[in-house]
């Protein structure tokens, strides 16, 4: 009775509720083919949302993240279409992303420009670089083996890409909660002056944050390019605002200092179930946006009132006890 559910657990329950509701009321939602569909659709978005969350915990935001993904995809694609193997291609893709992340990181941490400004600029910049490289054309035609990353199964039922996501969920969780870097990320997000005065090298912490976010973007890009067998300047661009939405719906404090991996993942699941469910119902695509916008507001409004309610209760209890 006393054990109050955390914000994240409530969100988890909401996700389950939506899943059950959709299963009951949307035919074919709970069919094996649809479930496997969703398992394939989750990872690319989940990874970007995780990357966005890590940046938001520091009180920043990365508006360039989807273009980093696209750039990374272009890097990998260029390698493969020029006859290199899959592994070198993936490595180059990741390096491309890390270069972008490092650029963001340097401007944010060394020069001290607010992240929203930096990434607003680099978003246009990276897009420009991709356009300059590809002339806007899609690059496609990858080895068959490459398509296994995004389309293949492990042991016949679990998508490989889902396993990759799981791996990064666990990794991100461990890094944030158990590593000293993670601790510093949270502390920095709450008060960067105090961390500086505690001997923390803020610039290093931030640098790693932007590198990590770009790494997640790169992994997401590899899954996307493999799944879609092609890459273009707008690869994954629709995930940008969605990933911010998922992170904040997941409870991440937009001003920094708080954010949990599971919260974000639950939010990603909620988006997934709703999008998929409404598509299956044949709802107008625009309505999906409306519903997602509404959920964002409703859930946070609910949080507000439940906080208020529980605070009242907490304020009252000691008095009564006394």
């Amino acid at each position, binding site marked *: 009775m006393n054990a109050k559910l955390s914000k994240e657990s409530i969100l988890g329950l909401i996700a389950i509720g939506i899943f059950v509701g959709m299963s009951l009321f949307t035919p074919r939602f709970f069919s094996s083919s649809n479930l496997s569909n969703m398992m394939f659709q989750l990872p690319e978005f989940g990874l970007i949302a995780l990357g966005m969350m890590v940046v938001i915990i520091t009180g920043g935001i990365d508006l360039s993240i989807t273009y980093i993904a696209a750039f990374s995809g272009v890097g990998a694609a260029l390698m493969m279409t020029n006859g290199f193997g899959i592994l070198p291609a993936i490595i180059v893709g990741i390096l491309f992303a890390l270069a972008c992340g490092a650029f963001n990181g340097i401007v944010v941490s060394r020069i001290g420009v607010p992240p929203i400004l930096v990434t607003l600029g680099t978003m246009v910049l990276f897009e420009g670089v991709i356009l300059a490289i590809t002339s806007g054309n899609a690059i496609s035609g990858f080895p068959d083996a490459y398509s296994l990353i995004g389309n293949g199964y492990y042991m016949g039922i679990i998508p490989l890409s889902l396993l990759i996501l799981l791996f990064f969920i666990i990794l991100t969780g461990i890094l944030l909660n158990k590593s000293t870097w993670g601790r*510093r990320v949270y502390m920095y997000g*709450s008060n960067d*002056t*105090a961390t500086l005065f505690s001997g923390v090298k803020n610039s290093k912490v931030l640098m790693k944050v932007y590198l990590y976010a770009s790494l997640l973007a790169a992994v997401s890009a590899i899954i996307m390019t493999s799944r879609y067998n092609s890459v273009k300047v707008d690869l994954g661009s629709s995930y940008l605002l969605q990933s911010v939405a998922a992170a904040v719906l997941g409870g991440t404090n937009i001003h920094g200092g*708080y954010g949990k991996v599971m919260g974000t993942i639950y939010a990603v699941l909620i988006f997934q179930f709703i999008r998929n469910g409404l598509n299956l119902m044949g709802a107008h695509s625009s309505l999906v946006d409306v519903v997602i916008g509404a959920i964002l507001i409703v859930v946070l409004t609910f949080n507000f009132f439940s906080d208020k309610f529980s605070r009242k209760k907490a304020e009252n209890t000691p008095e009564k006890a006394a």
Partner: protein
Amino acid sequence: MSEYILEMEHISKTFPGVKALDNVELKVQKGEVHALIGENGAGKSTLIKVLAGIHGADEGGKYLFEGEKADIQEPMDATLKGMSIIYQDLSLFPNLSVAENIYIGRDSKKKPWTKINWKSMKKLANKALAELDMDIDLNKKVELLSIAQQQMIEIARALAFDSKLIVMDEPTSSLSSGEVEKLYNVIDKLKERGISVIFISHKLKELFRVSDRFTVLRDGQYVGTYDVNEIDEQGLIKKMVGREVVYETNKEKAETGEKLFEISSFSKEGNFKDIDLTLHRGEILAITGLVGSGRTELAQSIFGITKNVQGEMWLKGEELKISSSEDAVKKGIAYVPEARQTQGLVLEQSVINNMTLPIIDTLRNKLKLIDRNVEKNLTDQYIKSLDVRPAIPELTADKLSGGNQQKVVIGKWLSAQPKLLIIDEPTNGIDIGAKTEIHKLLRRMVNEGIGVIMISSELPEVLSVSDRILVMSRGRIAGEMNTVDADQEEIMKLALDNEGIESGNDTKTPNGTHHQEV
């Protein structure tokens, strides 16, 4: 009945888990200066916040203003009734001009589209500043002022309001003695005009200088109200802490050992120049001076926060090249900053996370992950040895009172086992009990071989704690002396330097009074 402007009785305030005020009483007469005193966390600020309408008290209290029930729902109600409150952490708008800051709040109840009359605003601000004998450009943004000037602006605002009751929560903690004296004069004038003042401070001497009566709180409970004539300093201390505390000048000459730390020709353009300084094993070196003399900048340069500094440093014979606070910590230097809330602590995070922040890298297990048990034990240990209250490591730091927050900051650096600790205004806003504890702690550290440099503007503290004193003035070392031979007048003269020629008279007076009282 009507002799009281303010009557508060049976006031209680419960925060989740903490009873900050328990059946407290505060009665203030018209035209008196009423001191509110108590240890850190005694509930002074909380009582003021209840008075001001920021916190609602628990039910059952009595709160009368000018003999009538004060029905105060929000801060504005208190203002309209004629109360002005100067909060411990100031309430200024850094992005607005001096004039706007003084004027703001006057017309909060007016229609939003009311046109601002810049002329009358400036007139009013000028008048208030003139009363404080201050000469500041009215168009200057407040963020460009020193902390002391900001404090004065806050006082000017209260004056401009023509309030009947002015509350000052530790107004002097960041003022230089010249400014403190100005403030005393203002308070005297207010009294003449029949305005009541509630004054909160940990500096007992100044309380005796300004106050007519004292109300003492201890652990959220009301201890009593005393007339200035019926009690002395020791008596008050006893009431506050429930025991006797001795607080006197350091008379012993420390046996100093070999050189521990040394800096030579330290310069930073626009901050300080040609600083040479040596710290020996076993001594506490105090750096004093007026506010703004460059002490903090010097400390932050040693600690690697301030960049582009010329000069050399040696610690235990090794030359140090420090380019960041990280380097400094690695080399064994610790710095307790003066701004506890913004620089010292991450307020939204737990005590445990704060305590272990500088050393978190050393608390890793074999997997290179944070070892929570070790972390918890370490924190518990320091909470216990520093007597942090409440002793809950998971509590977020913003829930602690000022003094306890300071203990956490010190604990954080103790855990880092530094070779050199620089502590900036260590007892700013800290009660006398905690203060002596901190002083003892500094001594203990020195005895254990840690070098301690203490920056302080409070002369009694400097004199009682340090072994040697450096006086800084306008970015240079103006003089040096051993504490045993030190004399307050001499220190003030060095600190004031040639500026002292004009203002010397003003500033000597408080020291004079100090002497009489000691």
